[in-house]
């Protein structure tokens, strides 16, 4: 059980939802293998894998004495190595994720907060499945991560990390630098969940393509604010980029809004298309929707949790 609340972001209601999610996740995963993954490598588990000839230096405890009695030759029993799944959750902490539409009410979630709650939920499920979990924030570059964690006992660390994100060195999104750094740091390939709005002026395709080439299993969760996908403000506006501070004067009428919607839909379609082409998962998370619905959807469709 989760005992304490590190911040208002993860209140008791949120934590109780996570508990419920875990039960649901177990039910869905019933009949399949346990959460622990068997790797191709032999190891020290109880599951027999094979025999091989004894070589000097092998552990004498692994000699199969039954075969030696029948064949008088020394064989070593090989057991399957039980391997945990490395899960990397990368949360975009750039200024665009911190953006909130004007006159937003108290129930409106910032994309960043929504992403953090989503990340916590995913981490909880991962830890419950005894996966090796790594958390990172990124913006202009990859920030210092939480460190490896395994088992539910580490969930408090997760909450602490997500609730108190490290100070960002820069608030401008740069997927290329951030993912390159991640690739260098990641010791084992595994599942990479990237929670971001992917509004990178320098482009998201090239960094993701590199990650794909490095044989990472990629899951993109695009965080979208409703006001971002469907702007409602009309008139003579001076738009300010929340990341760069760049300004642009534009007169917004219904036609311009329609053109913007089209541009946004095309942007989403490109992102989704990329994922489908390369066999990766993609989901769009709307901050207006309850995050647990999104998690359930992920679990049911099996795209993210296996």
């Amino acid at each position, binding site marked *: 059980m989760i005992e304490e609340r590190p911040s208002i972001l993860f209140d008791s209601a949120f934590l109780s939802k996570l508990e419920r999610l875990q039960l649901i996740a177990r039910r869905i995963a019933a009949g399949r293998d346990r959460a622990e993954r068997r790797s191709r490598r032999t190891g020290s588990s109880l599951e027999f894998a094979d025999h091989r000839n004894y070589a000097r230096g092998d552990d004498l405890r692994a000699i199969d004495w039954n075969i030696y009695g029948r064949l008088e030759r020394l064989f070593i029993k090989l057991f399957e190595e039980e391997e945990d799944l490395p899960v990397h959750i990368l949360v975009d902490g750039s200024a665009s994720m911190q953006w909130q539409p*004007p006159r937003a009410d108290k129930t409106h979630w910032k994309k960043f907060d929504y992403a953090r709650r989503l990340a916590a939920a995913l981490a909880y499920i991962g830890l419950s499945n005894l996966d090796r979990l790594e958390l990172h924030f990124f913006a202009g570059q990859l920030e210092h991560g939480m460190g490896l964690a395994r088992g539910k006992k580490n969930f408090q660390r997760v909450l602490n990390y997500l609730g108190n994100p490290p100070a960002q060195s820069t608030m401008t999104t740069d997927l290329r630098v951030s993912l390159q750094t991640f690739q260098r740091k990641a010791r084992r390939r595994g599942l990479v969940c990237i929670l971001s709005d992917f509004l990178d002026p320098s482009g998201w395709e090239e960094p993701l393509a590199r990650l794909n080439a490095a044989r990472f299993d990629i899951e993109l969760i695009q965080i979208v604010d409703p006001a971002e996908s469907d702007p409602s403000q009309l008139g*003579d506006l001076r738009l300010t980029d929340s990341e760069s501070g760049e300004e642009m004067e534009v007169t917004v009428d219904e036609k311009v809004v329609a053109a913007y919607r089209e541009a946004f839909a095309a942007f989403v379609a490109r992102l989704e298309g990329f994922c489908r082409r390369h066999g990766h998962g993609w989901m769009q998370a709307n901050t207006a929707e309850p995050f647990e619905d999104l998690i359930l959807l992920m679990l049911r469709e099996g795209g993210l949790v296996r």
Partner: protein
Amino acid sequence: MNFLFPIGFAFLALIPVVTALYLLKVRRRPVAVPSLLLWQQVLAQKKRRSLFQKLRQWLSLLLHLLILTLIILALTRPVPAGRAAGEGAATVLVIDDRARMQAVDAGGRRFDQVVTAALPAALEANLGQEVAILTTAGQPQVVQPFSQDRLEVRDALERLSPKDAGGDLEAAIRLASELVSGREGGGRVVVFSDQPAPENWDENNWRRIGAAGLDNLAITEFAARSTPNSPGTAEVLVEIANFSDESRSGNLELQLENRLLEVRPFDLAPGETTRLIFPALDARRKYANSRGWLTASLDTEDGLATDDTAYAVLPKVQPIRVLLTGQNNLFLERALRSEPNIQLDLLADPSIDVAREFDVVIFAGETPADWPWLEADMPSTLVLGAVPPMLADQDERIEQPLITSQDRTHPISWLIDFERLAVAESIAMNLENTPGWSWSLVVDAARTPLLVAGERIASGERLVVAGFDPIKTDLPLRVAFPLLISNSVRWLAGREQPLETFTATAGQPVRLATGESVLPEAVQEFRPVLESSRETWQTGTFIPMDTGFYQTRQEGETGWLAVSLADPELSDLRQPMAAESESAAAAVGVDPVVKPNWDGWLLQSPLPLWSWLALVAALLFTAEWWWFHRRRTE
């Protein structure tokens, strides 16, 4: 095109201001967005339409300048030049506001119908038409000079009210025609009356209101006068006419101030006129504040209420101040005191200055030698039993003179028979040496006149001389004695004629006496205390326009002038008034209409040109506002 408010063009200075505001950069609303990434893509597409954007801005500026120009033009109140100075530029509305127009028929009060019918003509004032208004009651009066201000003309029209007076429609039309002919470009005269249009007049220029005849009862005469033989009483004459085709009956009520004196029923055949006489009304004003207001009113309902009430003033009988000289004139004194209208004073030997303060001086039995006998400043004098020195005929006395004749026409001998008078003795009189005097031998006898009445021809001094002493006759024992004294005193005081009060007819000029002034405000209801809003007293000739009582003032003394309608022609609502419109048309010539040469739709339009301009500006403004919100203009 003429402009009634050209100062409005000063607002054209706003055009550069509007343009400058347009050239200034639009203050845009700052809005933070997550990223400009997508907006830049959209803007890149939008730039392809930048030329159209600029055109839209210019279109918006053009629209605003057009709206501003239209508003300024409306402000200057433009009128078509043809209407302002050309033909048909002037219209004179002749409004019949005579008493007849107070008649009420099915459409309401006729005058109200006149105003309603005349109001559309006032609208033409804003179309460059110059409109003037003339009324007919009393004398033709220009109540609104030529004006192009619709509001001014309309207000003048709405301020009008019907008068209680008659008037001359013909004179009004003639005056209107002269006004129009004096205008450059001519014009037209539009008459609003209950009289029929003459044959040669355009019906559009003669609006007849109340063509249907109405039944009416009217008081056509109302007069009061003091009774000749009794100044303390008065008699009243009321004439009632039935101007209808049916018999009418009712009651006539006679009121003195707030007191009902008498109610007299009447029954009149169609078209009949009757006279009611109220004799021997107590003419003495019993109250200190009495003004002698007499009101006669009919209790019937008919077409015109104004002539159902008439006003008159009871004659105010002034006492005659009489000075009796001498002593032991008991019979004479009693006879004088029995006359209520005589104010008697006794003085044994008055000086001439004291005597001049009296209306009549009586000498009995003796005559003072220092009296200005037969001179120009002699007071009116009655001499009994004596003869002034210049009339005495050698102090001869005639014993038992034989009366030969009596002048019964002379006021002194009114109701007296002197033929059987027994006179013991009389002083002989000789009237030959009295140049400048006219004598009447009231009672003549053989050898000498007994009673003479003389009047100085040049200055009107009067003298009555009885050569016999009435005490030494049988006269004091007869009724004739007080009559002789009363007749003589009244004749000497100039009161031989009964007092008759003057009742004026509304609309007719009243020539006021020298020093007399009138407060031109009619009062109809008697109130003990009068409060007048006017302090302007009028002198000279005064034309009362309303019936009622008008206060007059002369030498500090207050009087009252009664004014009634009393015009049978005005009261007869069954038919037009003696074809006066025909005579007016004949006098004017033909219908003085000059057809306007500018018969555009604006003439028929209920709105002036500036209103149309303002309307277009409002429509453009609405369109611009709609386009702005549709982002058609920015």
